[in-house]
């Protein structure tokens, strides 16, 4: 089932700030296949959230550059007028579970209505019908019937996150982007939410883009893992490939920084500071922190090499030929 649902091609998203232009997403290529979960992993500030926003064209006011191609259903979202993106893409095709569920619900509207709202607006359904579907989705994510008529402040963090997930599913989208869906939750709740997501993936056969800073968490659900560093995807491959034989030094460091349940190894820190996206380092952006740094790394940006089939990485270590 090699059906590509979403194709990102040379996607760029730059912002203007007082300090200069921030290259939050820089030449990103990524394919998402039907029913596949892609884990997007990286340190905070590496451009993960910007990428999520770029995909559904939710651009802030200070956008400096937004180009490349986001192909969905034969349409390029980048070129699509805002109004069409709003009507055709958002929620119908792609929905997002935003970071920090605490603040994504309108405090003065009952949660049930908020879940049902897109149906009324996009689906042109009447209220009763929409409510019925919303109730079903809320049940699907494990919420009790009575939550429907509650206000957000009356719910716990975990319940809110479930509401937000139900909300993301309400229009049966093809792709759900989950931006750090569990980061604000207690560990026990985190596990519950992860199990829910796995269940949903299994039962509904939807595609997911799972954004997290926690590579271990990503591995739990993802079929494919993309590692992001300084606005670029530096390594991508199947979850197995990336976890077991990481190619890029950054991925290797990232894995070593993750505590493990078994073994004697202690987690290591990644030396150096995260890169500045306004003035990224020359050549390979990881070179100031890389233990294997070579001369070429400082001068030229690495191309994408494929040391193993299906596993691509942006690192000169694998560029046998010059």
């Amino acid at each position, binding site marked *: 089932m090699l059906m590509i649902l979403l194709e990102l091609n040379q996607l760029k998203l730059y912002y203007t700030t007082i300090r200069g232009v921030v290259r939050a997403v820089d030449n990103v290529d990524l394919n998402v296949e039907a029913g596949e979960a892609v884990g997007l992993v990286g340190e905070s500030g590496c451009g993960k959230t910007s990428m999520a926003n770029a995909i*559904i064209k*939710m651009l802030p006011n200070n956008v400096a550059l937004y180009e490349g191609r986001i192909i969905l259903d034969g349409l390029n979202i980048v070129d699509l007028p805002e109004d069409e993106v*709003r*009507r055709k*893409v*958002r*929620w*119908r095709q792609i*929905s*997002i579970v*935003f970071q*920090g569920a605490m*603040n*994504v*619900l*309108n*405090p*003065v*509207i009952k949660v049930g209505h908020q879940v049902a*709202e*897109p149906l009324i*607006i*996009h689906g042109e359904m009447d209220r009763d019908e929409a409510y019925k579907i919303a109730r079903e989705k809320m049940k699907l994510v494990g919420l009790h019937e009575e939550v429907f008529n509650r*206000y957000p*402040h009356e719910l716990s963090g975990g319940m809110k996150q479930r509401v937000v997930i139900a*909300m993301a599913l309400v229009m049966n989208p093809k792709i759900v982007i989950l931006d750090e869906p569990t980061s604000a939750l207690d560990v026990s709740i985190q596990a519950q939410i992860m199990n829910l997501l796995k269940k949903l993936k299994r039962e509904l056969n939807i595609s997911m883009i799972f954004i997290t800073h926690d590579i271990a968490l990503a591995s739990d659900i993802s079929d494919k893992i993309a590692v992001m560093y300084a606005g670029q995807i530096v390594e991508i491959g199947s979850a197995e490939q990336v976890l077991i034989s990481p190619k890029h030094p950054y991925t290797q460091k990232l894995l070593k920084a993750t505590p493990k349940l078994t073994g004697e190894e202690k987690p290591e820190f990644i030396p150096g500071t995260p890169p500045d996206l306004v003035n990224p380092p020359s050549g390979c952006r990881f070179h100031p922190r890389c233990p294997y740094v070579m001369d070429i790394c400082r001068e030229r940006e690495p191309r994408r090499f494929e040391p193993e089939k299906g596993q691509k990485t942006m690192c000169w270590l694998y560029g046998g030929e010059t």
Partner: protein
Amino acid sequence: MGLARTLFMRALTLITVLVLVIFFMVLVLGATGTSDKILQAMVNEEIMMLRQSLAKTIKDPQELERVINIRKQELTEFYGLTKPWYVRLPDMAWRVLTLELGKARTLKTFAGGNKVSDIVMERLTNTIILVTSATVISAIVGLVLGVRIATRVGGILDRLSSYFSAISYAIPTWWIGIILILVFAFLLRLFPFGGLYSTPPPSDPYMKFLDIIWHAVLPVTTLVIASIGVWIYTTRTIVLNTAQEDFVNAARARGLPEELVRRRYIMRVAAPPILTNVILGLATSISGAILTETVFNWPGLGRLFYDAVLVMDEVVVIALTYIFTLVYVVARFLLEVLYVILDPRVRY
């Protein structure tokens, strides 16, 4: 379940405030001897009237003095002047609370009565006319402009309004009123110098209504100028803060039309704090109108207060201080109720 309880608790707090204010006022009145002065004046007045009426029947001066002295003793006893002020305190507080402050010394109702509660009630309407129209105008203009500016942050209008609100923080309202009088009443002769209506007032009710409006233009403008800057600025800030909330962005991500996002996700959420401002503004401007009414000779509570201070009519000063506090506290309570209705977050 929690709604009634919350409101009850707030009501209780505010009533406590009211009671404390009265207690405090009474304490000040008693400790400074003002209360003795007032009561003594009441006794003296009654004695004076008694003397006038008795003088016709009792011809013997000695007999007259004797009768009057007895009566004076009774009255002194009755008003509690024989006891120290702190013993009279509860009674005194009750008098303030029920506005049973007796008669004003020099101030009168328009009909000529001098019962304090009558005078106060008569003027209250005029103040309400002035303050509500000014607040409604500032609120509407302030809200519309504030919301507009919030969508164009950093624009000319935005900068102008922030300068304006900074400057209006430094301008005394009453002075604006004086300048308006100087320009529009004295120089251009467009509006009257002050008062509620012309003398004599037009007999036709419609004309009378227009006459009142004509008289209200300058004082209302004064109040509006004084408060509009703050209005625009607060509205702008609240709307702006709300617009930056995650849930607004999330609503956009859900593909909800911008119009709906603005109405249900920004304005609806920004409404309670803005409303707080409206009511609080209303409550403070009722006492703030003291100065504006004074300048425009508007026969409301504020002007009454000024007149009372001017002629040293303590009874009226006390009554008005109490009324102002009462209005303020009631407005605060209404505010709480409305807030609770509008914002589900505080219902616990």
